[in-house]
C-alpha cells in the first residue's frame, strides 16, 4: 500500500510545483552582463545615417538602453509608455534599432513619436549579439559607471519601472551620494 500512497504524494508534489511555477515568468533570464561593463558600440543613427551614436554618448550618465524594432509587437505595446517616461525627464533613453529596416524605423518614429535621445541603427544585429539580446524589446539599465545594472525582457510599463528599475536607481544614487 505504501508504494501507492508514495505515487499519489509524488503527484501532489508535482502539481504543487506546477502551481508555484504558474506565477513565475520563465522569460526572466538573468543577463550575464549584470554588474559588468555594458558592451561598447558606435553605429549610424536611425534618423541620420551620417551621424553616429554609441556608448560614448552617455558615458558617466545613468541611462536606459532600449532594444527595439518595428517588426516586434511588444515594442509597439511599450512605445506609448516609453514616450511618457521620456516626457518625465527622469532618465535619458537611448535606442538600439535591432535588425530592422531603416525606412520602417523612420516612419515608426515619425508617426508614433520618438522617445529616444538617439537610436542606433543595428542593421545586422551585431551589437545586439554583444548585448546578449534574444528578443526585442529588451531594456537595460546602465549605471553612471557604465555597468549594466538590470535587464528587463519584454514591454516596459509603469509597474516594471516602479518595481524593478526605481529601487535599483535609488540604491545606486544613494550609494554614490
Amino acid at each position, binding site marked *: *500500500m505504501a508504494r*501507492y*500512497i508514495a*505515487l*499519489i504524494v509524488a*503527484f*501532489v508534489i*508535482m*502539481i504543487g*510545483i*506546477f*502551481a*508555484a*511555477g*504558474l*506565477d*513565475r515568468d*520563465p*522569460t526572466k*533570464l*538573468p543577463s550575464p552582463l549584470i554588474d559588468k561593463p555594458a558592451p561598447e558600440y558606435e553605429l549610424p543613427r536611425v534618423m541620420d545615417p551620417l551621424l553616429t551614436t554609441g556608448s560614448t554618448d552617455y558615458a558617466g550618465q545613468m541611462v536606459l538602453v532600449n532594444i527595439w524594432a*518595428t*517588426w516586434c509587437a511588444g515594442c509597439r505595446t511599450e512605445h506609448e509608455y516609453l514616450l511618457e517616461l521620456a516626457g518625465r525627464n527622469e532618465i535619458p533613453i537611448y535606442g538600439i534599432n535591432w535588425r530592422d*529596416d531603416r525606412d*520602417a524605423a523612420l516612419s515608426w518614429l515619425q508617426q508614433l513619436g520618438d522617445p529616444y535621445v538617439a537610436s542606433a541603427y543595428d542593421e*545586422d544585429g551585431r551589437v545586439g549579439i554583444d548585448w546578449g539580446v534574444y528578443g526585442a524589446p529588451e531594456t537595460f539599465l546602465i549605471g553612471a559607471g557604465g555597468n549594466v545594472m538590470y535587464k528587463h525582457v519584454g514591454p516596459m510599463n509603469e509597474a516594471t519601472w516602479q518595481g524593478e528599475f526605481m529601487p535599483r536607481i535609488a540604491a545606486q544614487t544613494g550609494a554614490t551620494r
Partner: protein
Amino acid sequence: MIPEIGHFALILALSLAVCQSVMPLIGAHRNDAALMSVAGPAAVGQLVFVAVSFACLAWSFLQSDFTVLYVANHSHRALPDVYKIAAVWGAHEGSLLLWILLLAVWTVAVARYSSELPRAMSARVIGVLGLLSFGFLLFTLLTSNPFERLIPAPANGADLNPLLQDIGLAIHPPILYTGYVGFSVAFAFAIAAMLTGHLDQAWARWTRPWTIWAWMFLTVGIALGSWWAYYELGWGGWWFWDPVENASFMPWLAGTALIHSLAVTEKRGLFKSWTLLLAISAFSLSLLGTFLVRSGILVSVHAFATDPARGLFILIFLGIVIGGALILYAWRAPGMDSAAGFRPLSRETFLLLNNVLLVIACTVILYGTLAPLLYDVFEWGKISIGPPWFEFAFALPMLPLTLLIGVGMHTAWRSQAFGALFAQLKIPGTIAIVAGIAVPTVFYGRFGLLVSVGAIAGFWIMTVSLLQPLRSWRRAPGTPGISRSALGMSVAHFGVGMFTLGITIVSAFTVEADLSVRPGETVEVAGYSFKLTDLNNVQGPNYQALEGEIEIRKDGKFVAELRPQKRTYLVQQSPMTEAAIDAGWNRDLFVALGDPLGNDAWSMRLQYKPLIRFIWLGALIMAFGGLIAASDRRYRLQATAREGTAALREEPA
C-alpha cells in the same frame, strides 16, 4: 452568424458530453440498460456538434472573416487556402478544438467497434471519454473561445506565423494529436477496469489494438514533426529536446511500454497493475504535455501565446483527472495481480526489462524537461538543460534496451532454454558485429568505439528481426505461418534497428560547414562541390525571397541543383530560412542561405548528412509494424465471432 453557430454547437456538445458521461456511468453502476444505452448516441451527437463547430471555424478562415478575433490574429487574405485551413489549428484555441474533435472521433470509433464488449464495460469507457471531453469543452468555452468577435474588424489579418506556413505543419499536428488523444481510450479502458475492480485477459485483448492505433499515429506524428523541424527551422538538426518535443516523446515512451506490458497481460495474465499504471501514465503525460505547452510555464520555440488563467484551468483539470485516476488505482490495483510465475530466462523477464528501461528513459526526460521549472520554483537559480545532457541521459537506458530487444523477441514465454536461444542468435549476432565494425570503417572511413557500438546495435536489431519472417517464408508447406502480430513486431523492431543505425551514422559522420560564398564561387564539403551559380529575387504569394541557385557536383558529375531561399513575410516582416535539400536514401545534402556578409558574399550553411533518412524511415516502419499487428486475426476474430453468434440466433429453430 456562422461563428455564432459554431459557438452554439460547442455549447450543445458540452451538454451532450454531460449526458455521455453521467448517464452511462450511473447506468453501469446500477446495471440499468436504458441509461447505459445513452452512451453511443450521445457520443455520435457530440461528434456531430463538434464537427459543426470545427467546420464553422474553418469556414471563417476560408472567408477571411476578420470579425473573429482568432481569425484576425492568425490569418491573412493573401494566405494560400491550404494554410488557411492549417491555420485553424495553428494556435491555441483552434488546436484545442481539433483536440476535442479528435477525441469525439475516437469515442465514436470505440462506440462503433465495442459491441463485443460487456455492456457495462463499454458504457464506462464511453462515459470516461465523455468526462474528458467535458473538461476540454469547458476549458475551451471558458478560457479559449475561438469564436470571440473583434469589432470593428481590421482590414486584414495579422497572418499566420511564417514558421507554420508549411505543408509539414499542415499535416503533422492532426496526426500527432490523434495519437495523443488516442491514449485516452486506453486510459478510459483502465478506469473502466478499475471501476469494475476486475481485469482479465480479454480486457487486455480489447485494449491492445486501440493502444497500438494511438501509438502508430503518435509515432508518425513525431516523425513528421521532426522532419518538419529539420527542413523548416533551417539549421539541419532533427531533434532539439525542446520541451514541446519532449512533451510528445514522453507519452510515446510510456505508450511503447504499455504496448509491451499489455502483451504480457494478454498472453499470461501478468503485470496487471503495472499495465494499468502505464495506461494512466501514457495519457497523463499527454495531458501534461498540453499543460506545459499551453500554460507558458516553460520556454519553448513551439509555445503558443500563453495565459496564466489557462494554465490554472489545465492544472486543476490535470489534478482532477490524473489525481482521481491515481486514487482509484491505489484503491483497486493491489488486489489485481495474479501470482503466476515465470523463469528468469523468459519473454516475461525481457518485457519487464523493456518496461523498466523505457520508464527510466521517460522519467529522465520528464526530469530534464521540468528541471528548469524546479530550480526556478525553489530559487536554486536558473538552469538550462541542453541537448548534450538529454542525449547522454537518454542513451544510458536505451543502449541496453537495443541489445535486449533482439534477445527478448526470440525468448519463449514462461521459460526458455539457454542453448536453443544461443543457437538461434549466434549468426545474427556475428553478422551484426562484423557489419557494425565494417560499415563505419569502410564506407565512412573511420573506426570509433561508440560508433561501432551504435552500429552493432542497429544491425543486431535489424538482423534478428528478420529471423521470424524468414523462417515463416521458408516453412514447410501446410504449416502455419507467422501471425500478423508477430510479423508486426518483427517489422516494428526492424524499424527500431534502422532508426538506431541512422542516428548513429548521422551523429558520427555529419559534415557541417558555414562558409562565405560569392556568386560564381565553388566550395567543397564532404567530397561534394557546391557552386553558387546565381542569386535572384523571387516573389511569393505573401512573401518576398532571395533565392540562391546552387549546383552540386561530385567528381565532376552533376548531382543536383538546389534553390534555398531567404524569405521575408510581408505582414509579420519576419525573415525565414527555407533550406533546400537534396535527399537520397543514403545521404542528404542540405543548403541554407544565411546573411549577406558584404562584398557580394553570403554566408551559407552546407551539410552532408549520411543515412539521416533512416531516422524517419525507421519511425515509419515502426508505425507500419503497428498497423500489421493491429490487424491481427485475434482482434478481428471477436467481430467474426459476434457475427457468427448473431447468425446462429437468427437461424430458425
